[in-house]
């Protein structure tokens, strides 16, 4: 397993609060890596630092062998690392289909002059291929009949699925999912677990921040546990139960698949 993402000794403070303190971990290619920890552990800040939405005080983030710390979010995204946010961030006034099509960043076609001149034949072909792919993805997520709907009119769960659809459309090398299960019912949760596993099948490695431990146990290959800004454990989920530091910091009483649906 080669490391797709290597985070080394990341630090970030806000005023007197050391949000991320010497955080280091790796995420392997073709794997699903969970990132868990109590509230305030620095998970969200860590992924903001990795994805460029915040700039680390010190430390390095190496993605596919290139240092990316301090780069702007769009540059990191173009390298193939896409993140989601705790709340679904669809483009509300655009249609569901437009939301999907826009997930593919296309520097040439989005340029001013080319847009003014109108698309060439090759670009039209590319666009129609994209449309067909978008339809197929919408069908997979059960959103096809809603494709002309304003994305802002979707339900919370549908917005989560739309977000997953955008990731499938963009086909990044790595996706960082920030609490994708927030406010999602169990039936939909099952569907989302399948979708997360599907990302790996489509060539996208996954980092997933989540409090829903049964979900983490089910989908992840490796789990990184953070507490107070640092990584306290890095192991497959089943090994964490025996790790006293993790139990003290986060797990507490052992959760089981049945009763831990936060």
């Amino acid at each position, binding site marked *: 397993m080669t490391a797709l993402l290597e985070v080394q000794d990341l630090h970030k403070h806000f005023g007197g609060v050391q949000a991320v303190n010497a955080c280091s971990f790796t995420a392997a290619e073709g794997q699903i890596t969970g990132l868990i920890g109590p509230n305030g552990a620095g998970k969200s800040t860590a992924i903001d630092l990795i994805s460029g939405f915040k700039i680390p005080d010190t430390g390095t983030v190496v993605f596919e062998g290139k240092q990316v710390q301090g780069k702007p979010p769009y540059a990191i995204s173009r390298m193939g690392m896409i993140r989601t946010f705790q709340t679904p961030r669809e483009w509300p*006034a655009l249609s569901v289909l437009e939301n999907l099509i826009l997930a593919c960043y296309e520097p040439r076609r989005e340029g001013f002059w080319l847009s003014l001149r109108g698309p060439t034949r090759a670009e039209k072909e590319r666009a129609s291929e994209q449309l067909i792919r978008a339809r197929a993805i919408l069908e997979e997520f059960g959103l096809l009949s809603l494709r002309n709907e304003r994305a802002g009119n979707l339900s919370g769960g549908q917005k989560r699925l739309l977000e997953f659809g955008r990731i499938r459309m963009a086909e990044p090398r790595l996706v960082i999912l920030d609490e994708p299960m927030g406010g999602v019912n169990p039936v939909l949760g099952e569907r989302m677990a399948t979708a997360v596993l599907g990302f790996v099948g489509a060539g996208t490695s996954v980092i997933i921040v989540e409090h829903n431990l049964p979900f983490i146990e089910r989908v992840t290959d490796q789990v990184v546990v953070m507490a107070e800004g640092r990584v306290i454990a890095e192991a497959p989920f089943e090994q964490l139960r025996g790790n006293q530091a993790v139990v003290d910091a986060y797990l507490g009483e052992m959760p089981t698949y049945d009763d831990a649906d936060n």
Partner: protein
Amino acid sequence: MIDYLVSILTEGVIFAIMALGLNVIWGWSGDFDLAYYGYVALGAYMTLVLTIGPPTQPTTYILGLTLPFPIAVIIAIISSMLLALIVGAIALRHLRGIYFSIVTLGAVYVLYIFAGQFVPLFNGYNGLSGLFDPMGDFFHIDFASYGFYYLGLCAVVLIAVVIMVTRLNTSRFGLALRSLREDERAAAAFGRNIYVTKLKAYVLGAGIGGLGGALFAGYLSAFNPSAWSPVETIILYAAILVGGRGSTRGVVLGVAVMVMGLQEATRYLPEVANQPSFAPAFRLILTGIVLVLFIRFRPQGILPERRLRDEDPAGKSGAAAVAEKVVTGPSLDTGVA
């Protein structure tokens, strides 16, 4: 009567051009820009100083060239775009929403006071005048029929602008821009350089504003600070909001309703004794009422922005869909229409 109609229409067409430029900035990109009328004014001023010849005592202004009207208009557009590049580069860097608006309002007031007080620039509060019938001599048009000709010229320019913004709006450029308006962080997460894209839209919008200003100068044959109080921008915003923010057809309709329609509707009000300012005041009150009603009951405007519609009836995916006509409405250069 016919002259009157021509002048009303010319004014409407020029305001429609201005509103379309503002719609790029506010309707697509989502930035509530209050400096916009500054770009219109700069376009007008530049057109005048490039065409009316050297100043005579006691007036003073820069340049004082006698360039042909079309060349002056092009230089005027470029000037407006350069000014917008400077203002936009500062204001769009980190500021959004009301903070962006405040900075742009500050910028336009600096410009307004500068143009008024610094007399050597554009002759201060007395302004510039003397651009009579641009290109009238070139086409040998007599004074009586010149109004028709100028209306025609403005209409041709409006059509060109409509074609341009329609193309952009249905292109990936326009779509990406609207994604910035809808959610910037998500747009950045999917690879959009927000600052550069927004700045492009800002400069483009200002260029269209400069074009509107240039035509306005040709129509008025003069320009001074009383012709462009920064409040004028609000009238353009009212037109865009009523017509349909982001919608090209809507904006043109909005100008017809809010600029031309309201002006005409209030023209035949009975005069109130000793209150000569009653009619203009009433017009502003009416504008405000219409605006409030629209924001409350139809915020998307009369002709709302259109979304891509994918009309594939069975929702087929795969090769079968290629052969069918699947996209109507804005074609979004998907190429399948």
